[in-house]
């Protein structure tokens, strides 16, 4: 009769813009020289690694590096407002924020959902009060209002955003979604068209627009929007599926079949495309093939409701996401104190929110609160045990915390998970150099890096470890390789010169 998803916010486009992957990687990238190694933070790390260029830092950064100084985080703005003074206790408190959980356990706030929603609203309200002209802050607040069913308030936020920046495409998408909820489809189409025009790469805006057209009975227009979207992103299986559905609504079964088949090429487990394909095939008289797909799609559908625990976890996860994005806004304005509180609450809300934990790790590492950071990385490892980036982070933090055994364990997991990538070996080399002076191990690891990748800087690192092991000839030879690969590397040439002098001196 109903499903709880009815009340969940469908659109995630803004969340994607603040991008879990981007956030994770940019934050991690600046902490330690090994942290920047992986630019994909997906569960299927090795697959992502194949796609992303790896930035190798030949000169290890120290743990004194401010992880939030990374330009990619754009943490440059640091203005104070009268509200800041109130928060800092110089005036009457503006809002009494609920105390977040400390990051040392897996517990979630022992509060009912209504309380969690109210408290989350307080956090986000504060961000908006601090930065009332920041459209990203208003966007987060609007999304929370939408999630909580406060449509008028959400609408206010988006209208304010447009007052600040008339080209803010997300606001149009949001207003379109509200108009859809109010069954004002013409109005929805108007807003969503603007959203799509301003955010041409945003799949969600295009999907919403096609949905608005469909609900308005304008099937041809819906098809055009989806086709335009596919011009931009041809490998979007869900767009192909929606196109197939729109074709079905238009009774164009051959075109529908083609669209569903394309969707299934891209995602063979898409049961809606399976169902659509079977329906199209039936109408085209291909009964045997249709029956095959019909059977297949049945197995993809759940016939039971999610348990109450699962539903509540999803609700908490939605709220937690909003809080995390609020924290991103705070970090953008360099309000790390409040960001940390917000992230801690977000983490407490959802046992599965990785992004809040990643950001917290970054902040805690900056504060040298290694024990707490390790606790959080342990949570990340438990959530995504195949994510090599998290193990790499854990190993690096253990190195900073001078726990060689732990670092060894963590980095060995990295090497196990992605043996053909260099980052685990480099981190291992670093750990041994820093913690136990095991120059032999460091040399072995650097040698492995040369074997796998063999860039100029890899040879230079290897040369360094060879030199540490008093293998001067080999070190010179390695450095010569480094120079050969990068003739512009003057620093290598200088070191090579010094080594040759030393050899002559001997």
């Amino acid at each position, binding site marked *: *009769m*109903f*499903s*709880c998803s*009815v*009340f969940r916010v469908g659109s995630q486009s803004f969340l994607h813009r603040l991008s879990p992957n981007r956030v994770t990687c940019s934050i991690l990238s600046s902490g330690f020289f090994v942290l920047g190694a992986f630019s994909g933070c997906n569960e299927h790390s090795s697959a992502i690694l194949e796609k992303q260029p790896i930035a190798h830092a030949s000169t290890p950064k120290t743990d004194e590096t401010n992880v939030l100084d990374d330009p990619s985080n754009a943490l440059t703005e640091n203005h104070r407002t009268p509200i800041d003074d109130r928060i800092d206790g110089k005036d009457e408190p503006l809002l009494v924020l609920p105390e977040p959980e400390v990051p040392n356990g897996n517990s979630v706030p022992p509060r*009912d*959902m*209504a*309380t*969690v*929603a109210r408290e989350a609203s307080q956090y986000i309200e504060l961000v908006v009060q601090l930065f009332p002209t920041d459209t990203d802050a208003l966007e987060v607040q609007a999304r929370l209002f939408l999630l*909580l*069913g*406060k*449509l*008028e308030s959400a609408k206010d936020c988006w209208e304010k955003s447009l007052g600040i920046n008339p080209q803010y495409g997300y606001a149009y998408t949001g207003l379109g979604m*509200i108009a859809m*909820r*109010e*069954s004002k*489809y013409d109005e929805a189409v108007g807003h969503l068209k603007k959203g799509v025009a301003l955010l041409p790469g945003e799949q969600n805006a295009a999907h919403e627009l096609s949905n608005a057209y*469909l*609900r*308005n*009975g304008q*099937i041809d227009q819906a098809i055009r929007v989806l086709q335009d979207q596919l011009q931009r992103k041809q490998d979007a299986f869900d767009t192909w599926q*929606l196109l197939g*559905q729109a074709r*079905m*609504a*238009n*009774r164009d079964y051959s075109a529908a079949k083609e669209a569903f088949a394309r969707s299934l090429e891209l995602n063979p487990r898409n*049961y*809606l*495309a399976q*169902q*659509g394909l*079977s*329906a199209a095939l*039936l*109408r085209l008289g291909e009964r045997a093939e249709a029956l095959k797909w*019909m059977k297949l*799609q049945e197995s993809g*559908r*759940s*016939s*039971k*409701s999610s348990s*109450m625990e699962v*539903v*509540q976890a999803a*609700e908490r996860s939605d709220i937690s996401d909003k809080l995390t994005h609020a924290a991103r806004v705070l970090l953008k304005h360099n309000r790390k104190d409040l960001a940390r509180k917000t992230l801690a609450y977000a983490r407490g809300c959802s046992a599965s929110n990785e992004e809040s934990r990643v950001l917290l790790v970054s902040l805690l590492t900056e504060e040298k609160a290694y024990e707490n950071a390790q606790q959080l990385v342990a949570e990340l490892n438990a959530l995504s045990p195949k994510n090599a980036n998290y193990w790499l982070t854990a190993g690096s933090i253990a190195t900073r915390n001078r726990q060689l055994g732990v670092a060894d364990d963590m980095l060995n997991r990295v090497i196990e998970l992605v043996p053909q990538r260099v980052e685990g070996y480099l981190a291992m080399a670093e750990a041994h150099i820093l913690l136990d002076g095991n120059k032999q191990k460091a040399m072995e690891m650097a040698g492995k890096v040369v074997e796998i990748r063999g860039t100029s800087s890899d040879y230079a690192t290897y040369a360094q470890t060879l030199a540490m092991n008093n293998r001067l000839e080999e070190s010179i030879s390695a450095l010569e390789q480094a120079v050969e690969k990068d003739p512009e590397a003057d620093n290598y040439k200088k070191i090579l010169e010094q080594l040759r002098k030393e050899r002559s001196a001997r």
Partner: protein
Amino acid sequence: MIVSSRFLLSLGFWFLPRAMAILLVGFFNGSLVLAIVQDPAVSIVFEDVSEQSGIEFVHSDGGTGKHFIVETVCSGIATFDYDGDGLLDIYFLSGSYPKPLSDSQPQRNRLYKNLGNLRFKDVTEESGVGDHGHGLGVAVADYDNDGDPDIYVSNFGPNVFYRNNGDGTFSRVENAPATNPDRSRVGAGVAFLDADSDGDLDLYVGNYIKFTYEKDVSRLILGIPAAPGPKDYDPDEDQFFRNNGDGTFTDLSIESGISAHAGPSMGLICVDYDQDGDTDVFVCNDSAANFLWNNDGTGKFTEMGQLAGVAYDYAGLRQANMGVDGADYDLDGWIDLASTNFQDEIPAFYRNAEGQFFDEIGASLGLGVATRNVTWGVVLADFDRDRYPDLFMASGHLIDAVEKLDSSIKFATKNHLLRNLGGKKFVDVSSRAGSGMQVEKVSRAAACEDLDLDGDLDLIVLNLNSTPTLLRNDTISTHHWIQLNLIGTHSSRDAIGARVTIQTKYGAQVQEVISGRGYQSHYGHSLYFGVGDATLVERIEVKWLGGKTAIYGPFAVDSAQTLVEKHDVPKK
């Protein structure tokens, strides 16, 4: 400055639909200002005449306030002429719980006798149909072919069979297998049909889920209490009972194939969708694939929902289908199906593609206007007599605190009225369709009949925990109509399953005689055809169930005709 209609035509406005008229307002700043309004001659108007109707029935969901799933699914409604006086009476079902679970007074179903002029009188006590089980579904038919309508009620708990004594009273048929006397099932829609075309009416009984109070599941959405959904429970199998011809029934659920698939049934309808001469069954399933039981003509059924394209919506998604009605919306000679469903689902419209497939085209027909509410009762009927069936959907949410979850949705809301534009599109005319369409209640079941015998179709709506809404059709129209009452002699006396084709100067229009439809309700036993401005029904063809065909007419319009079974054309 006055501009003549001839001038407007010269501007090219002639191509506007017949239903639209153009009013010239005048010139403003040099520009011609036109207002396009609905032609008053064919605007559908319903006035709320509930207060003066004398109907004091107040539905109860049981009143525990505990959000049991059986409280939310609500009861059906039936319209039929119980005493043979030519006026259609109304039977309301109500929920009711055993005393230990509720402080409320035991509720009972109520029968209201039509006194004429939309005035009604409660005759529950004297007629003896005041069951106080938890009423859910109802169908009416003359199952014993004795000339008066009998009532079957499905409950949460044992069902009830009321046999009409022919004197304004009913006798309860005790311990009949068809009443599930010793089983506590959650009922749903029910329907009489002659599945084996043997001249007596069999019974299809929908069942919802396997529920007991002990198995209740608590649900919260963002901390707000809500009723659980059907997927929180195991679905139940439907049942099929064969009429033995002697007033008794035999449970053939297994032999007929019906029990082979379980689903959370709600509304259902029996029609011959493929025109193969036997009656098939479409069943709405709540959050599950709908069933289409294809009859092989002997009362054996095969489930064809997915193959026929009625299991899911156009996107392949399962819907929470609630009610269903059938009519030929585009006058192509095939019965199409309209089905109501949950919030954010576009009401489904299954266009019958010549009995081979159905195309779900709710979106392209314009039914997306009703996606924000949960819709339940559904009526496809010609309210403006332009020949094309219009669409009424009763609406109301099932979460009483839904406004806390979404400020755009209300628990009590207005119903929907969509006008059929020539079989091409439905347009929402609710806001300008009179006071009756502005009523905000938590509506569930709906029924449609010419209750005041004025030649147009009125509506009666059952509202959750409230009084019903009686809507008088005040549409001003020059269009005509004809009403047909069929009496079977070889086929069942109620002629259930007979297919009627009327012929006017505009062409053919088709309907079937149906028992049980909408949201777990029963209405429309007499067939009502709007015929536009045709002044003569030239010919009526009736295919009586069993394959024999007879021709009747011609008939003057604006009349009610009784057609008694005869066999002009030899059985094929």
